[in-house]
């Protein structure tokens, strides 16, 4: 498959990384030679240095005509849109444009752009906002990923002393009717795909797969019942992500946004509903300011400034002040791992989120939903089992499934089912696979 990426900044680089691991033909176009060099040093792909203001010739040179996927992720949203229109007219099969303005993602506008040749429009801020809002609805988990409107849910949870299943080997606690399934454990910097002899320890970051009706009993098992529901949230940094979050939040949550730039404050006032959102023109990194606005009463603290260090430190401070749920936006990929070990709750990386969202598109019809989990460097994907595919031939324990991958659960019809060794997967089932350190296309073969 041939993929052309325009724009080599964070999202482009991340995409290049994802795609090149998947043995695809990648071309990346940018006007910044240094960025291209850096990418070329790490990934197996071809770079084209060209001015973005006159890109038509280089688009032709890159062979847009027979490309399968054309992705425009430059800084300029209108350039992205018009590049996609051009690429489509030149023959690209699928085009993706990144936009910054949330207004461009409303259904009517999207369908107008679809007609013009932009197949998919992606707004990183609203993707990040979706994640954050989802996190606030389920404060006790750090990550949550829904399969089939929540028929199955995967939750990333950091277990502490209150957890009831610490220190017991899994072969003792797991029965065929257990309400959950552990798909992966992150301990320190290691990712463990659990076997019967493994056990949970305090401080482990555990990925649970469970069914909708068992979510609350899982909450009891991991001992997170003391986490309150979010009524008051504090956001530091009033960027576009903050606006997107606020507009997506349920109306019963009151929000205070700290923004130190007075001009931005004036803009924010126009963008949010002032009856439940208060804009505060002060530095959200100052404890005094936070205390003045009653941070102790807030159930959630979200740091969304452009500065990853500031976000990490602000979240640590909020944790110390007793805020149960903290979320930090981290743009710098190098920090993601460290931040996972420090106690700062949920981490949001807009670039990675956008990249993995786009990456799904490549995986085509058999993989309907995929997500890259930053903290464990793993992917979770949904596959649909085709009739006669290898996965339907034997019971799970006899399949010879790679050790690096774990079957999380299946959705049959509208019902979620958890998987154990005796499960027999049927054609048409949606199967959730967790894979770490292995190639997702290797797993894909089981389903073809």
């Amino acid at each position: 498959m041939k993929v052309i990426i325009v724009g080599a900044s964070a999202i482009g680089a991340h995409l290049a990384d994802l795609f090149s691991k998947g043995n695809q033909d990648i071309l990346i176009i940018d006007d910044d030679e240094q960025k291209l060099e850096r990418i070329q040093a790490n990934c197996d792909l071809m770079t084209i240095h060209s001015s973005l203001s006159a890109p038509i010739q280089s688009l032709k040179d890159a062979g847009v005509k027979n490309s399968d996927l054309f992705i425009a992720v430059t800084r300029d949203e209108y350039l992205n849109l018009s590049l996609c229109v051009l690429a489509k007219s030149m023959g690209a099969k699928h085009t993706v444009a990144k936009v910054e303005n949330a207004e461009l993602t409303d259904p009517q506008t999207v369908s107008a752009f679809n007609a013009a040749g932009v197949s998919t429009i992606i707004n990183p801020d609203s993707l990040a906002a979706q994640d954050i809002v989802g996190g606030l609805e389920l404060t006790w988990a750090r990550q949550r990923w829904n399969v089939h409107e929540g028929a199955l849910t995967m939750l990333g949870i950091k277990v502490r002393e209150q957890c009831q299943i610490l220190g017991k080997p899994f072969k003792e606690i797991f029965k065929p009717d257990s309400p959950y399934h552990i798909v992966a454990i992150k301990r320190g910097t290691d990712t463990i795909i659990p076997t019967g002899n493994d056990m949970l320890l305090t401080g482990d970051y555990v990925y649970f797969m469970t069914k909708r009706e068992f979510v609350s009993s899982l909450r009891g098992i991991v001992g997170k019942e003391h986490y309150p529901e979010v009524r008051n949230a504090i956001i530091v940094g009033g960027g576009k992500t903050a606006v997107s979050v606020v507009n997506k939040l349920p109306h019963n949550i009151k929000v205070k946004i700290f923004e130190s730039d007075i001009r931005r404050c004036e803009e924010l006032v126009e963008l949010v509903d002032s009856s439940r959102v208060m804009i505060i023109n002060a530095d959200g990194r100052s404890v005094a300011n936070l205390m003045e606005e009653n941070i102790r009463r807030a159930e959630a603290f979200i740091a969304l400034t452009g500065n990853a260090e500031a976000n990490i430190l602000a979240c640590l401070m909020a944790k110390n002040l007793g805020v149960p749920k903290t979320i930090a936006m981290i743009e710098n990929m190098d920090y993601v791992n460290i931040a996972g070990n420090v106690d700062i709750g949920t981490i949001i990386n807009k670039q990675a989120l956008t990249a993995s969202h786009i990456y799904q598109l490549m995986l085509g019809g058999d993989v309907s939903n995929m997500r890259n989990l930053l903290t464990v460097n793993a992917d979770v994907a949904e596959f649909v089992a085709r009739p006669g595919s290898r996965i339907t031939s034997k019971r799970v324990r006899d399949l010879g499934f790679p050790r690096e991958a774990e079957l999380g659960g299946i959705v049959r019809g509208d019902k979620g089912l958890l998987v154990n060794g005796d499960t027999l997967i049927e054609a048409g089932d949606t199967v959730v696979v967790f894979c770490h350190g292995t190639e997702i296309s290797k797993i894909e073969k089981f389903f073809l």
Partner: protein
Amino acid sequence: MLNKRLIFKILGTLLWIEGAFMTLCLIMALCYGESDILPFAITIIATLIVGTALRLSGRHASSALSRRDAYLLVTVVWIAFAVFGSLPFLIGGYINNVTDAFFETMSGLTTTGATCIDHVEGLPHGLLFWRSMTQWIGGLGIVFFTIAVIPSFVGGSVKVFAAEATGPIKSKMHPRLTTTAKALWGVYLLLTAACAVLFFVFGMSPFDAINYSMTITATGGFATHDASTGYFHNAAIDYTAIAFMFMSGVSFALLYSALFKGKARQLFRNAEFRFYAILTLAATAFIVYFLLRYNHYSLGYAIRVALFQTVSFITTTGMFNEDAAQWHHITWVILSLCMFFGSCAGSTAGGFKCARGVIALKVLRNEIRHMLHPNAMLPVKVNDSTVHTTAQITLMAFFLAYITLCFTAYFIMILAGVDSTNSLTIALSCGSNVGPTLGLEIGPTMSWSILPAGVKWLLSGLMLMGRLEIFTILVIFSPSFWKMQ
């Protein structure tokens, strides 16, 4: 530099229009064959002569109308209309002094509706019609009327419109001012016609129906009977009057989009309309309670009179169907509050305007919140759009000017020996263009003829300032207005 020639020219045109309105009254007088034929004929000739003279003197005027010209023009136009409008009363001898005649006409034009004629039933029909006519023209504004009729008038200048229009936010409904004016006058005409037809159906004579509908939709308050609508003792007429007074208090632009563009829902989402409706209902509820408790009215009758009086005061109409002087004095406070607020901006009503009330209350709430959250950005939003700080300051300045003006008038009236309750309510009544006064000396149903002449001149000025929203006139008295630059 003031463009005097242009002002003369426009003034001349407007006097012709006044002459045309008077001709309608002359026709009315001829139909009834009463004593006011000659006074009207003389007035019309005088008005046309002066109008023509003014037009001639402004023949070669350049068409550049500055902001100053606009303010001066609007003020002069209103005074000239009142001067010429008072002539029929004087020439016919129905009012025997200049003070009362000018006061009566100014009260009409500004849609105040306070009268110093003790016995209106004694006036000939033509003159009664002229009284109602002054209110009807004054309702949406004299200049604004002309903009609708003569498209080329003042070259579609928004400055003149802004000098005469009421309310804190002056918005156009259509890119062209003339089209906007036509649409609003269309709404006005429709309301008046509908009101007249209903009054006729419910048993008024055609003459009364037309007169009452004109003064009600103008939220004026002049009546052809001393007892106002109370003369009819008819619930259907009362409720019709209530409905039309209330509608005339709604922003005409809003009514237009609700009636002709099917956006009725927008009406109920509008913050100003909601404030207006809630204030009306709350005031009515309070008054009903006091009427039941102290006056022992039946519930149905209490609601009828309380609603009528509240709507009459809040829309600054000033009609009455019962003597509020007999009510508990606390109701006077409630009615005074209604007088102060008035109804929506962009209607025919006067007063502080509900739009300003909404904004002022939000500013107040924000100030209190600001004490607790010193760094918070607290926007004042009305109908989802932010009212900027400059607009907020203008509004507060208006509030201050309004209060200062009313209190100055109050102070002077007390010095002149008027009863203190009366002084306060008269000041409010004139500042808001309502009409009746509440007090011990002059009741709400009585004429103001006993007031001293000096006070009447003061009140004439106050009414005009109230109608033109103070600043238009105040700016003329500022020294910098007259400085040559």
